[in-house]
């Protein structure tokens, strides 16, 4: 009896940790398609807590209001929650949306649900993260994450002024497409490849600041003879910075990051890292909503990949690297006027 209750405890604990607690049923239902007039837009983000997705959601809601479109936002429970996103898509179909804007948790994890939606005549636009294959959705409005990584890498390379890099890398969730693209772009920008001896170590921190700090502390124990740090996003950059600061290494290191959130730009202004690469989620959201409105009116669907751009933010501009200062960055963080 006790043994059985232990099994139940462990099973349920794992369930609680890895899945959400809501259960939604898909009953089918009517779905409005293009050309019928009023746009009904559903947004599915990876989570509803990350400030990046909060900005994306708020921008989309504002754009929908400004254009007289219905709007509903749903999200997965955590980054990587494909099942939660599938349920969100089903739920939106049930509500009869004619456009779904989605930031896919993984580039392949929700393709079947997307196909079902498109088969039902719903316009599906990927925001922020491309699907694999890209034509699984009608169009993608996103940061070119490889290019963003490349800009970060090029900046760090320029800041080293010809000194060979000794690099530590703080990666995000292993296997996620954004992580892979930024990582690859950074290495191209700095002129290295995976396995180059200049890479002194790497840690995967799943976007968690405290894990990034721990990973960095452990890497620095191997060697403090480094001069460059890659961080896949800004919360992890803050964790890495805490570890570097404790070692008194911040002066000898060029650290770059990616995101361009207001907190991240402030970190650059405060000197925590040399540069960040800003993304523009507001543009993604607005363009997505405008495409939905257009589709509702005329039935015309957008196609292909639309790069919403990225920009280096730094107070230490370098020749050959196009950049903006943090004053501009604070005004434009994540594309929104603050």
């Amino acid at each position, binding site marked *: 009896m*006790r043994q059985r209750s*232990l099994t*139940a*405890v462990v099973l*349920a*604990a*794992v369930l*609680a*940790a890895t899945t959400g*607690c809501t259960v939604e049923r898909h009953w089918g239902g009517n779905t409005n398609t293009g050309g019928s007039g009023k746009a009904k837009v559903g947004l599915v983000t990876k989570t*509803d*807590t*990350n*400030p990046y*997705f*909060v900005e994306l959601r708020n921008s989309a809601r504002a754009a929908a209001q400004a254009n007289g479109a219905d709007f509903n936002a749903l999200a997965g429970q*955590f980054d990587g929650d494909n099942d939660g996103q599938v349920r969100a898509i089903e739920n939106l179909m049930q509500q009869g949306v004619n456009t779904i804007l989605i930031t896919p948790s993984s580039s392949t994890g929700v393709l079947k649900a997307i196909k079902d939606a498109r088969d039902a005549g719903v316009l599906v636009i990927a925001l922020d993260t491309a699907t694999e294959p890209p034509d699984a959705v009608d169009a993608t409005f996103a940061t070119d994450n490889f290019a963003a990584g490349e800009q970060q890498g090029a900046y760090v390379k320029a800041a080293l002024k010809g000194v060979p890099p000794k690099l530590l890398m703080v990666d995000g969730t*292993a296997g996620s497409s954004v992580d892979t693209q930024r990582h690859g772009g950074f290495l191209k920008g700095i002129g290295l490849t995976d396995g180059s001896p200049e890479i002194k*170590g790497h*840690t*995967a921190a799943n*976007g*968690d*600041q*405290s894990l990034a*700090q*721990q*990973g960095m*502390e*452990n*890497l620095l*124990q*191997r*060697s403090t003879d480094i001069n460059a740090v890659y961080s896949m996003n800004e*919360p992890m950059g*803050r*964790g890495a910075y*805490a570890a570097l600061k404790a070692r008194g290494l911040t002066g000898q290191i060029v650290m770059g990051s990616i995101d361009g959130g207001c*907190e991240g730009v402030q970190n650059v202004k405060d000197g925590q890292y040399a540069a960040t690469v800003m993304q523009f989620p507001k543009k993604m959201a607005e363009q997505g909503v405008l495409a939905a409105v257009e589709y509702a009116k005329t039935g015309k669907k957008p196609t292909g990949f639309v790069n919403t751009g990225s920009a280096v933010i730094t107070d230490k501009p370098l020749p050959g690297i196009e950049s903006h200062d943090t004053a501009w960055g604070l005004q434009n963080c994540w594309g929104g006027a603050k």
Partner: protein
Amino acid sequence: MSTKDRESLGEFLLRAPAVGPALALVVAIVVFSLATDTFFDLDNLSTVVQQSLVVGTLALGQTLVILIAGIDLSNASSMVVATLIMAKLAAAGTNGFVALLAGVVLTIIVGIFIGSLATRIKLPAFIITLGTFTMLTAVSKLIAGGQAVPVTDGLLQWLGTKRYLFGGIPITYGMTLALLMYLGIWYALTKTAWGKHVYAVGNAPESARLSGIKVNRTVLSVYIVAGLTFGIAAWQALGRTPNADPNQFQLGNLDSITAVVLGGTSLFGGRGSVLGTLMGALVVAVLRSGLTQMNVDGNYQDLATGALLIAAVVVDRIARRQQQS
């Protein structure tokens, strides 16, 4: 080894459940010290202890709860809400001490809530804390509004920023406080009537009741003391990273259970020790640190931690079986 020898080993492990994890810790430290030329270093050992502080403090309260055959799935989310309350209040200009107190009061209130439901309505702790876990996770996201809250208040960071040297080893006040808490609860569990009641309730609540122990009062007191430790874990967390972020410590509840089980405390209650938990928390941090320095991929680190956890439960099982036979 003869059967007789093995029986006595089992009995020994039952008498001193912290010995197994202590051995594992020593073996891990020796292996990593030999395998790398960077692991055995006073600064690094200090860092490893600091890395285990938050989970170690969560696990301290979790040990008490598991000793009475309960479980707390909401300890980390309660802690995260407390960090956000402390950070938000401090950011709004509230005195650091008041902010700290507010966070600790919250985790104690959560403890009273869980303890009351467990004693008055006799709900299983697992179900209650699954509910509080879900609620508190939502509350943390609502409070944060999608933004991490930076902390600059000196008192809130004090446990991480202030350090002194002890025999060449850098010691933070966070480490000192954790050690004092472990000693205090170790003392309470082994030297006071309350401690004997906790073990008795965990072993067999009905017999405990018949022998005159106020079972409900003991259970409630355990959840309150545990709540206090979770509030202090929040202070520890802000000392480590001066940034309250609702996305941190998402698996802190399971990490704390891992430390408790690795420490030799039985999930069925009534058997275990906080010193074992201390070892359990340190073993996890030592594995992470050592394997990272050996350049082992993070997924293999998780694999090793999981395997060690199962090994710990197997040892617990064998020891019990030998006691019964």
